[in-house]
Structures are given as structure tokens and as C-alpha cells.
């Protein structure tokens, strides 16, 4: 028996800490395990005893890249408990805020984190050092900045915004403030259409495993804040039934929690799942941009998530412009909520996929318990299953290249910055 052990000290451009362990026997994978070493962070524990108004602020600190998602899911869940009805104007402003986060998060991932894989660079910093590619990096940064500027205007700052809260916003922007961003948003819309065309020219491995795609679906619009949970295998349930179908599983010998579907095992959430399940809800330019790529959708090729992400950026710019044109400043900006005891849950579509929050409150408004399922926890098992199917295709490559391909596969999921990896060690043991 020969034992071969290869260490890849870090996995960059994905965040958290992880290792991929593979045992190969006679050219066949016998064991495969993606381990995540995110330090335990206990959010569900220390939220107990905190006031419901603090939940959006505290849960935002789970992820610096998608704090809005945490603020949205927690606010909606708590509003259900307290019987708060937000106004149509607040609803529109929330959707606008989410567009901003989708833009900044997706642009970051497409240009700074994922494109280098496809183009053969170690980072966007090296891409920018190449005069031929610097304009693309600059374009990506500007697209991202527009999302951040919109986010900061509505939220008070880009990272961990301060204005969104239970019942609405501490302050809603004026129409004039929003209109001032229109020229840049229009530029961003154009740039995002070009981005879709560009992602379509990338070289995609032939890889289309069979699996369940899960996302929200709303009767009138592409899903962000509301909808039912649906899948390509016929699932169609209200958010309240999420925990009956989706099980939390604490993986042995790690601090990772996998979420899997009771009936079908691993599943995918995120841009590719959303797009596949909501093709008929695309905005006009996003739809056209997708059609012009010539790529067939629905598609289960995880590498094409970069195309899905780009299409969603077009959609987010289009929606942002539409909402700003119709904007009426919410008055009041926030619906006051009185404490009452109860239970409530909600899912919104974070840039990386469905984010589930469930809270139980006492009659003083203090949190008794909660559960949070982040998109990356839901996708982890899917990543592992993908690797089972994918690794045989790359095992013959030199080790460095095989590692790069595996990392690229993992990056398809845009594992969130603080729930994935800082040390991806690829350990291949050959027997």
C-alpha cells in the first residue's frame, strides 16, 4: 500500500477554514470529506435573553458580506410573532436594499473571487496587473461600489447597516437622495449586461450531476423577501414547514452543521437554484441577457453559477431602477412593535441562498430560543456530493491542478466569507 499525502496549506478567496480529505483505492474514491473549521460562534446561544430589537443587529455579525440578509430574515420572523404589518412603501424599500446587497456581493464574487479561477490568475490583484484585464477588474469594482453606495444610503453604512430594523427602517432615504444614484445605476445596468455576455464565454467543465434545487418562489416577482419554498422535485411548502423537511445535522468530529432534505438528502440553494426555479420571473433585460448567452437553462452545471450570478446582477439593477422611479418615502419609516410572546420563522433569499431564522419570544420581548440556517450550511453537503462526482475527472491531473479544480468547484457555491475555509488542505491518500 502506498500512502500519498498532499497538503494544500490554504484555500484562498473562500472564507472560513476547511480541508478536503480523500482516500483513493485502486483509482476509486473510498472516502471523501469536506471539513470546515469555522470557530464555533454560538450566535443561537447568546441571542437568548437579548431583546427582539437587537436581533437584526446581532445576527448581522454572522456574516460581513451579507448582513442585510440576516437583518431581513430576523426582522420578518419577529414581525410575524408581533403581528406587525409593514406598509407597501417599506416593503419596496426592503427590496431595494436587498438589490443593493445582491449587487455588491455578486460583483465581489464574480470579479474578485471567481473570475481568477476561470482565467488562470491567482487573484484579481494579479488580473489587475495585466493591462488587458485591468479594465474588467475596474468595471467589476465600480459595479460593486454602486451596490455599496446604494446600501450605505439606505442602511447608513455598507457593512452592518444601522437603519434596517424590525418594522422597517430607523430612517428612510428621501426620493431626492435615491434619484441622485440613478445615473450610476444606469451605468451599472449596462455593465451588468456586458458581464453576463462575458461570463457566457468562459470555459465550463462538462459536469451536470443530478440533484435537488431549492429556492423561494413568489407569484409576482423574482424571490427576495417572500415566497414559498419550492424545488425541482416538486416540493412546495410554506416557510413554516421548513424544519419538518430540512434537518440540521452536526457532522462528527467537526463543528460543521449540514442541513439536508429529509426526503432527498443534499440540495442546492443560491443563485443557480433561484434562477432555474424562477426563469419565468426574470425582469425583461435579465431575461434577454440570459437568452443571448446561448446557454441552456435550466442547467444543473454548478460551474455556471457564475452566469446565474451575473444574470441576477442585471435583475437587481433593473429592479433597483424600477423601485427608485416609483419610490414614495415610507411614512412612518418604521412600524412600532409591542412585545408579545410567540414563535415565528422566516426565510429570505440571501445572495448565497435561503436564510432561515426562527425565534421564540417571551412577553417582555426577550428571545427564548432561536435557530439559524445559513445558506452555506445548507450547501455544504451538496459541495461534498459534487466533489464525489467531480474528483474522478481531475484525479489524473497533477496535484496542484487537481486542487485548483476542486477549489474552483467549491467556489461555485460562494461559501460565505465566515462560514467556509481558511486552510483548505487537500489530502489524497492512495491505497
Amino acid at each position: 500500500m502506498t500512502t500519498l499525502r498532499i497538503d494544500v496549506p490554504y484555500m484562498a478567496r473562500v472564507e472560513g477554514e476547511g480541508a478536503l480529505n480523500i482516500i483513493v483505492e485502486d483509482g476509486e474514491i473510498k472516502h471523501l470529506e469536506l471539513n470546515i473549521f469555522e470557530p464555533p460562534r454560538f450566535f443561537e446561544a447568546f441571542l437568548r435573553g437579548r431583546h427582539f430589537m437587537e436581533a437584526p443587529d446581532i445576527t448581522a455579525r454572522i456574516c460581513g458580506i451579507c448582513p442585510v440578509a440576516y437583518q431581513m430574515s430576523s426582522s420578518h420572523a419577529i414581525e410575524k410573532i408581533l403581528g406587525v404589518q409593514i406598509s407597501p412603501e417599506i416593503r419596496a424599500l426592503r427590496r431595494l436594499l436587498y438589490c443593493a446587497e445582491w449587487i455588491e456581493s455578486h460583483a465581489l464574487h464574480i470579479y474578485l473571487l471567481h473570475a481568477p479561477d476561470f482565467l488562470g490568475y491567482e487573484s484579481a490583484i494579479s488580473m489587475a496587473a495585466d493591462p488587458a484585464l485591468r479594465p474588467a477588474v475596474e468595471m467589476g469594482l465600480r459595479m460593486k461600489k454602486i451596490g455599496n453606495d446604494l446600501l450605505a444610503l439606505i442602511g447608513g453604512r455598507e457593512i452592518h447597516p444601522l437603519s434596517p430594523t424590525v418594522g422597517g427602517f430607523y430612517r428612510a432615504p428621501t426620493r431626492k437622495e435615491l434619484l441622485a444614484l440613478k445615473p450610476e445605476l444606469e451605468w451599472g445596468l449596462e455593465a451588468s449586461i456586458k458581464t453576463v455576455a462575458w461570463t457566457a464565454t468562459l470555459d465550463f467543465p462538462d459536469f451536470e450531476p443530478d440533484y435537488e434545487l431549492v429556492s423561494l418562489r413568489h407569484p409576482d416577482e423574482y424571490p427576495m423577501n417572500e415566497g414559498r419554498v419550492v424545488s425541482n422535485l416538486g416540493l412546495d411548502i410554506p416557510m413554516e414547514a421548513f424544519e419538518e423537511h430540512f434537518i440540521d445535522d452536526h457532522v462528527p468530529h467537526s463543528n460543521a452543521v449540514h442541513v439536508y432534505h429529509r426526503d432527498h438528502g443534499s440540495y442546492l440553494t443560491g443563485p443557480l437554484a433561484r434562477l432555474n426555479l424562477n426563469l419565468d420571473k426574470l425582469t425583461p433585460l435579465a431575461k434577454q441577457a440570459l437568452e443571448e448567452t446561448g446557454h441552456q437553462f435550466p442547467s444543473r452545471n454548478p460551474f455556471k453559477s457564475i452566469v446565474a450570478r451575473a444574470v441576477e446582477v442585471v435583475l437587481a439593477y433593473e429592479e433597483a431602477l424600477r423601485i427608485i422611479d416609483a419610490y414614495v418615502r415610507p411614512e412612518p419609516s418604521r412600524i412600532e412593535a409591542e412585545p408579545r410572546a410567540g414563535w415565528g420563522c422566516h426565510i429570505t433569499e440571501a445572495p448565497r441562498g435561503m436564510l432561515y431564522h426562527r425565534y421564540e419570544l417571551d412577553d417582555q420581548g426577550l428571545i427564548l430560543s432561536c435557530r439559524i440556517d445559513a445558506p452555506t450550511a445548507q450547501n455544504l453537503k451538496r459541495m461534498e456530493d459534487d466533489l464525489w462526482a467531480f474528483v474522478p475527472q481531475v484525479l489524473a491531473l497533477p496535484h496542484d491542478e487537481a486542487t485548483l479544480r476542486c477549489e474552483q468547484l467549491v467556489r461555485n457555491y460562494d461559501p460565505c466569507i465566515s462560514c467556509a475555509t481558511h486552510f483548505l488542505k487537500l489530502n489524497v491518500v492512495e491505497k
Partner: protein
Amino acid sequence: MKAPKRKIKPEKRTKPKLAVIKFTSCDGCQLSLLDAEDALLDVADAVEIAYFVEARDRRLPGPYDVTLVEGSISMPEHIEQIQEIREQSKFLIAIGACATAGGIQALRNWRNVDDFVRMVYAHPEYIDTLETSTPISEYVQVDFELRGCPINKHQLLDVVTSLLIGKQPRTPTYSVCMECKRRGTPCVMVSKGVPCLGPVTQAGCNAICPSVNRGCFGCYGPMEAPNTESLGQHLLDIGAAPGEVVRLFRNFSGYAEDFRLASDAFEEMMA
């Protein structure tokens, strides 16, 4: 599919080397650097980004001229790692509430961490963690601290620029109230009766919370010599419940000494 070759343009060796390191955190503070979209490529031209896992594969060994450290020390292996990073760093800057005060994770410092483990994980036996989440300065000497949850990207760029031109970086030591006055935001405590930690919190954020009609919750941590006792008393006088005062101090920078003593004192008062 072709496996593309990595192209790495050799960079000039003379540039100062910058490292960005993460411990237990949400990544928001290091993201501030990527969020400085207008300046990012200039920074990349001016310094050698030698180590920044969130942004690039290539990792150069130390020593580093400037090291930005995000996150708190919360795992057994962190202790050795931060000591090694200290040895490799000429100028070490702790960035954000996690790195300067233990962050929101420091809420565990008031509780039994084993209880927390049992609340969150089905198999507590797999979980290895320190009992506390503490700032970087608890274990090594820190040359400069940038406050906030998250830090302000303009402050970050100012500090890096100061270091590049050989100046000692500076950040304000006065309170958030000064920033409200400067931007003309009416005091939320006086005008709306909203509890606010602005009078005892270090400036630097440009008083954003009061500008959106809410009270400061102290994410920049205590200013120099804050009078937390009289502020806490005032909050009670304007109708805040003692529990609310405790929670307000015991927050993102709650483990910073002045805030910690304040929340403990008001908690004792409740008992």
C-alpha cells in the same frame, strides 16, 4: 476543460509588505479593504499585498511591514498563531471590535461556555474552544487599534497611508457626541428620549446612528475616560429599564474594560 496555468507577475521587492489575518470574526472588517473600491487598486500598487487569504491565493512569508489583524482569540490554536504573527510583523494593527475588545463573541465571557456549546451543537464532545473570546492585546503587544464593528474604511486607508509616509497614525479619542455636533445632528437623547451611548463612545464612525434617528450602541468602544456611571444613571432617569442599560453596554465592544465594568455594575443594581 483546460487547467489554466497560473500567471503571477513578479512584483517589485521594494514595496512594503502588507498582511491581513483573520481570527474569530465575521470578515466585515477585512472586507472594508475590498469595499474601498476606489482605492483598492492603488493600495495594491503601493504596497505588496503579501498575505490576504480572502482576496488572493498567493501567500508570501513574513516578515511583514504592516499586519492587519481581524477577529478575536477564541480557539486554543489561536494563541500560538497570534504569537507567531506578532514575531513576523513590524507594525501590528488590531482592526475592529472583535480584535480590540473580543467582539460580540465575548458575550460568552459572562457565561459558561460549555452551556453555550450544548445549546448549539448536538455533539458537544466534538467542540474544542477557549472559554473566552478576547482581544488581540490580551496575548501580544498591539501597535495600533482601529475601533468599530466594522471599522471605518476611510480610517483604515488613513492609517495605512500615514504608515507609508512614515507618520504615526492618529484617530480621535473624543466622543461620538462631538461628531453629532459637527454634522449638526440634533441629540437623539434630548430631542427624542432615545437611550444613546454616544457620550461615552469613541468617535470615528461620524455618528451614523443618531443620523438615522437611533441611539449609539457603542460599537466603537469606550472613549478615553468615559463617565459610564453618570450616563447609565441618566438612561435610567429617562426611562430605560436596568436590563436595557446592561444590554446596551454589553454589546459589540462590551468586553472593553470601561463598558464591562459598567454593565457589571448595572447588573448588580438589578439583582
